[in-house]
């Protein structure tokens, strides 16, 4: 099954996405990640104001069959979390790059996103991963 990729976002190998919006960065899990998890029933989000390091586990998503940590794509401060995703985890399945966003980060380094994979690189990474299976 093919998955969607947001051309304007940056990506981690652990299938998180991060997209600049003003001077903040919005983060979530990719369409590929939600497909692998299938129907989500639980989302646990970080405390607003928490200072996080890139690569740190900050959120949890669970389906009935599996649980997965969500990592912070960049270092910074959590400025907002999506309480709608906590109440209705299915919106992460339906719209992972939009209404199903998970948290916003005010980055320590405004250029931090540049270190992450762009959409093209992530698409290639997904293909590689697919080929390995």
């Amino acid at each position, binding site marked *: 099954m093919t998955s969607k990729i947001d051309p304007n976002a940056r990506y981690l190998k652990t299938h998180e996405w991060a997209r600049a919006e003003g001077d903040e960065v919005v983060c979530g899990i990719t369409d590929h990640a939600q497909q692998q998890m299938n129907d989500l029933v639980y989302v646990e989000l970080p405390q607003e104001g928490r200072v996080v390091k890139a690569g740190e586990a900050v959120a*949890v998503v669970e389906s*009935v069959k599996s649980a997965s940590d969500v990592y912070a794509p960049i270092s910074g401060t959590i400025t907002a979390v999506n309480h709608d995703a906590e109440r209705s985890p299915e919106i992460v399945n339906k719209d992972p790059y939009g209404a199903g966003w998970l948290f916003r980060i005010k980055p320590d380094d405004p250029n931090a996103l540049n270190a992450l994979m762009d959409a093209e690189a992530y698409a290639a990474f997904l293909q590689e991963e697919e080929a390995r299976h």
Partner: protein
Amino acid sequence: MSELKRTVLYETHRQLGARMAPFGGWEMPLWYASTREEHRAVRSAAGLFDVAHMGIFEISGDQAAAFLDRVSTNDVSRLAVGRAQYSFMLNDVGDVIDDIMIYRLEPERYMVVVNAANTEKDWAWLQAQRERLSPALTLRDLKHPSSGDAQRVDLALQGPQALNLLTRLLDASTPLADLPYTGVMRASLAGHDVFIARTGYTGERIAYELFVHPDHAAALWQLLLATGADLGVRPCGLAARDSLRTEAGLPLYGHELGGPLNLAPYHIGFDNFVKLDKPSPFIGREAYAEKAARNTLGMVRFRVNERGVRPPKLGDPVLDRRGRVVGTVTSCAADGEGVLIGMAVVERAFTSEGTTLYVVPLPEPMPEPLKPFAPIGNRALMPEPITVLPRFPMRPKPQASPQHAAAPSHRASPL
């Protein structure tokens, strides 16, 4: 760990884009696109399941019925030709070895379908009992190629449109519509030689299992999906199978039977499949009866009251209003609407419908215990309220109108 086995439909599942996962020693499809949609398809149309991992044995000869009566708890002497019965195999101390289906195909020929994960254990047990009790008996593994034309694998077609779909593929003289619940018949399904049994593991009444030669399984699978596409029939994975059987209140070996709690039929309200007084007593009878008499637990189905909570799983504690542990979760899944539904074994005083209990979904890793002045943002264990449902979903009274009979009716809870 030994290599995972694959069913004859493995490549078919890959082509359909299934997410594969290990189950009972087999690499099986977990879902194709969405567990929830597959769950709903079974309740409103029909779903096709690869259950070719299930073990299939054949027991034949003039001692077959007497033998089966010794090794299983239900009354085989009352099983008519062309019918099936649900039963349990117990060991000498009355504990469950497996739950099984026994199909009487011919007067002296029975087919026994067992859980995939238990197949080798069951086979060894049955062989040992055969040698001890009736060496003249023929016991065959119908999954093994040595059974030749008799070799079989199991596909399940479950849901209200299943009869319509199968009727399209049968010639007009095959009376499938007359096949009663738990009935089994031999038929030619578009040229494929099959045993069609009206049995299943989804709680559906219009539900069939098709026992077909493995060489025909992929062609039959494709044919069923193509012929049933306009009826809404779709392939369903093990995740939907689990959510459907959980919603239906049916036990899964390792969760509601045996498993870490060593659960038995008397724990789960299935003791009517254990005939303590049948003419030929089963192995483990005295020990079973003794334990049953001492049992203080019962099984409940429940729904988690709120959405978006951490899903409970096997082993999570169930509490009463005062925080005392009164039971243990055995299974939990999301139904067709995404509501978490589960089963738990609890003290009998808490089994009435409508009782409010609390489940504590234990996270991994466990959080630090709460202390005075715990920092803002720390997390603690959270008991979630659950409501006890009727032990089985309410089924509508049989109606004259077929439209009514086909209406989905499995919303268990009035809440």
